[in-house]
């Protein structure tokens, strides 16, 4: 839409906006659309949806508050932002739940219509904060606007819509206003609405009208003294889209299946925050994807393993409680040495825990949560877009080494989004798999035979001989197998050998890993901050903050948690201090201390939320000081 504003424009380099409202207010959609329009403008960005565990908690209550934070900038962005600069609060509950996060001086855009005595009482406001001076007194820039009634008024010509229906479009009005305030083009959102409501012209028009009314309000009102512009970020050339971690992960699996030439068979049982992967893959049948919604997680992984036995790419997706149920079958996959990808989108635990919140506390479950010596490969994704690459790497390892691979993501990565420089399929690794088709050994009398546990010398992988292959009929199973022949064996020495062989096979994976990348621009750092998984963004942002003060800190991030990269020990020993932030009580730190005897300094928090950059920067400063203090002669 053309811009008639006369309001002066101010350039900003970055902005964090949080949209907050009742679960029924459509805040996720509003945030999503703002994000898309922002992406189209060329800003770098990162988002953090935050929603309640209940579908529709009682309206207007604190548990019912849903929010969506988007951080956009003219430079590259590592996190969704520690704290919002702007808080959009659609009701008193949203204000109350989020105000503490808004720094003094921040901008507040509030739907004043919802601040009725009844709604205020619901969340325990004795007086109306919009009127009692508390907000302006605290230094907030308050814009208390009647968003609901403005929407209803704008939709007056839509005589067939009820008042209630009209009110629902208030999020579009808010979106229009914010788009004006931050100079976003709403063409993308208009196209989106067109696609969504094309079949319902009345509703389409109503939504468009509300959107435009919000924009027009901005142009005409004097409520806002300035509007803002955030210039595009200089991003590498390419074709971009915004993508959430779960979407990227699903696409990574499909891409890997195509590159491997194996049909993808997903066995899954719904669980937050992993269900979106099941949903997404169920729409991709045209790419040969089969999705089976099982009766439980045990069946889900069983179906995946059965499909793998048949020569498909067997995948199962879940979250922590589901991973617990899958343990025994993953052990079977270890024993049968079949490829299997197990995706765990971690959430707060134990037990049901915090279903919609993020955590990294399944690492030890992934590593050791099975009976017996049962090593599996473990890889972790570090950002929403990286979920794509991590999925491909998980498939590579699973098919090359004929092993289960646990791919760890989490709720923050799964639901968070960022711009993705879409790769070309030709640039993706070739994952071609060869099945066994011929006997691979000689029996005692020198006749050719097939031995299902005769291993590849380089990878120690056993042959993948799928049913339907003549002459290679064989039986596998969970009972210990004799080395080479694969017959049942209770022989003590054989068991000892097989346990070590299975471990050695996993260890061999390290041979194919690229050297660790260390970010230590000056080479003067003596403190290394190490991370894995979704702490990548916060650590990157914190490192920047620390370096901005002139201090030196190095940074490295692990994709592979089992096996650990071969050069990790040396790296840890190169620095005087290693700091490891984790959203658990120090699980990787425990592993590293045990493995390398390095005094890793753990920093932990399990609040269901990602670390803030400021918090980690503070931690790093403390370690820098502590290190300096050690050198002060006494």
């Amino acid at each position: 839409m053309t811009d008639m504003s006369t309001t002066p424009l101010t350039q900003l380099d970055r902005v964090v906006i949080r949209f907050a409202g009742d679960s029924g207010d459509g805040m996720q959609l509003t945030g999503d659309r703002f994000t898309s329009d922002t992406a189209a403008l060329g800003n770098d960005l990162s988002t953090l949806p935050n929603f309640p565990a209940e579908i529709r908690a009682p309206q207007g209550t604190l548990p019912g508050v849903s929010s969506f934070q988007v951080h956009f900038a003219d430079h590259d962005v590592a996190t969704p932002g520690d704290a919002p600069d702007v808080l959009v609060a659609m009701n008193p509950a949203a204000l109350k739940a989020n105000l503490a996060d808004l720094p003094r001086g921040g901008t507040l855009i509030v739907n004043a219509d919802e601040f009725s005595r009844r709604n205020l009482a619901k969340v325990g406001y004795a007086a109306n904060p919009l009127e009692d001076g508390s907000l302006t007194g605290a230094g907030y820039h308050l814009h208390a606007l009647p968003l609901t009634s403005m929407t209803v008024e704008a939709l007056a010509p839509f005589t067939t819509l009820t008042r209630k229906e009209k009110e629902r479009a208030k999020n579009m009005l808010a979106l229009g206003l914010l788009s004006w305030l931050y100079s976003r083009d709403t063409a993308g959102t208009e196209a989106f609405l067109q696609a969504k409501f094309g079949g319902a012209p009345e509703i389409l028009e109503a939504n468009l009208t509300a959107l435009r009314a919000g924009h027009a309000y901005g142009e005409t009102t004097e409520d806002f003294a300035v509007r803002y512009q955030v210039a595009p970020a200089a991003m590498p050339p390419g074709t971009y889209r915004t993508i959430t971690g779960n979407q990227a992960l699903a696409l990574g699996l499909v891409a890997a299946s195509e590159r491997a030439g194996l049909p993808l068979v997903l066995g899954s049982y719904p669980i937050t925050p992993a269900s979106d992967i099941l949903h997404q893959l169920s729409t991709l049948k045209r790419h040969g994807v089969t999705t089976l919604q099982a009766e439980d997680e045990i069946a889900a992984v069983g179906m995946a393993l059965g499909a793998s036995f048949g020569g498909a790419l067997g995948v199962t997706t879940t979250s922590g409680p589901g991973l617990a149920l899958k343990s025994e079958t993953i052990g079977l996959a270890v024993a049968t040495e079949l490829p299997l990808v197990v995706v765990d989108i971690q959430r707060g635990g134990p037990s049901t825990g915090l279903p919609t919140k993020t955590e990294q506390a399944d690492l030890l479950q992934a590593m050791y949560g099975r009976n017996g010596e049962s090593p599996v490969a473990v890889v972790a994704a570090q950002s929403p877009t990286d979920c794509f690459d991590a999925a491909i790497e998980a498939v590579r390892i699973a098919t090359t080494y004929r092993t289960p691979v646990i791919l760890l993501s989490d709720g923050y990565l799964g639901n968070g989004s960022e711009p993705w420089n879409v790769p070309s399929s030709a640039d993706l690794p070739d994952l071609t798999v060869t099945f066994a088709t011929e006997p691979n050994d000689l029996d005692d009398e020198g006749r050719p035979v097939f031995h299902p546990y005769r291993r590849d010398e380089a990878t120690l992988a056993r042959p993948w001989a799928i049913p339907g292959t003549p002459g290679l009929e064989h039986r596998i199973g969970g009972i210990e197998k004799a080395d080479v022949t694969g017959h049942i064996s209770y022989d003590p020495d054989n068991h000892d050998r097989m346990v070590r062989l299975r471990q050695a096979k996993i260890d061999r994976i390290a041979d194919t890993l690229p050297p660790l990348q260390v970010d230590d621009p000056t080479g003067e750092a003596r403190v290394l901050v190490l991370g894995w998984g979704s702490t990548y963004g916060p650590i990157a942002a914190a490192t920047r903050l620390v370096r901005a003060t002139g201090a030196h800190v190095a940074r490295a991030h692990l994709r592979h948690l089992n096996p650990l990269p071969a050069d990790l020990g040396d790296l840890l020993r190169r620095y005087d201090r290693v700091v490891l932030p984790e959203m658990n009580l120090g699980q990787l730190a425990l592993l590293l201390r045990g493995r390398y005897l390095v005094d890793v300094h753990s920093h932990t928090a399990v609040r269901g939320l990602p670390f803030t950059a400021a918090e980690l920067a503070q931690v790093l400063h403390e370690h820098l000081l502590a290190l300096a203090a050690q050198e002060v002669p006494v």
Partner: protein
Amino acid sequence: MTTRAGAAPAPPRSGLAGVPTAPVDVTLTKKEFTSDQEVRWCPGCGDYAVLAAVQGFLPELGLRRENIVFVSGIGCSSRFPYYLDTYGMHSIHGRAPAIATGLATAREDLSVWVVTGDGDALSIGGNHLIHAMRRNVNLTILLFNNKIYGLTKGQYSPTSDVGAVTKSTPAGSVDHPFNPVSLAIGAEATFVARTMDSDRAHLTEVLRAAAAHRGTALVEIYQNCPIFNDGAFQLLKDKDQAEARIAHLRAGEPVRVGSGELAQVVVRERSGRLGVVPEHEVTRSQQVLVHDPHDPDPSAAFALSRLDDPSMQHMPMGIFRQVDRPTYDDAVRAQVDAAVTSAGTVVSLDTLLRGRDTWTVDGTRPGEVEQTLEGEVTDGPIAAAGDALVEEADEVAGADGPRTE
């Protein structure tokens, strides 16, 4: 035969359709189906007889040996796959139906068999068993029922009778048992049969029908465990006793127990219940039941399954139910195939990755972007046309309010 309008396409096909047959010049025999592994069941175990019957029967299918797969759980009976020279997986306790579901769905060209015990199938694996039957996956499930946990040395099982004195029930079991046939019928199984280890001819006949059935065929096999539950089915094995107790189910025939003077038939009483009465005493208020395993209504088959009680007074054997219903694996494959073909031209991976909403960053003018909106790349609608305003759209955004426990 029943086909439902609009349901998955094909008219009933053989359970073996799609599985490659052996070349005509190759005659497979029992020998080719016997692996080189030493069989390790106790002497006299009923499992031997079943193994021999299966090894003897498989060549009759005329399939390529490499296209047959046996998947089992854990238990004495679940050792079965090791003794057959086909593909096989001896999996974990109770999970074979799930694993077999994945395999059978991924591979139309395989004949997939499940071997399980009463503990494996009905205790730990009960959930997978009922769901496999409900879905009607094209599997043949051989449920070895010895009314005991054999492998773990003699604890009672979900089919043990109330009062059974076992290792873990010295004072007698207080658990009410499952009747596997009733359970299967209740779980929507399309093929349900009962047979016995020692009756090779009957066993083979049932196997033949089960293999030909497209969908889940549940075959309960009464199997003697001479070590921990010897004689559990003696009343059905002793010739005279068996004659007076076993009701052989034959399609289109009355259900008869015993013969000659002592012959009894199953009748439907005016109340609707089934009764067993001497054949020459059938009254006009009683209707002689003619067995119809193909009856879409499962109630007669279910009622027949209830004739059996711990005293084994009347024991129906044979095929209780055999109806056609689209199979899960066929339907799943049909959806994928339809999506692949209706895509017309192959949807490239690159199109998929780019999605609907992209912009390009041109290297020459940093920051310059150009937005394009492309067609959908998923085969489902990205968003169902909503009749509500934007609130509904949150479901599209996929974030607001998933139910979460």
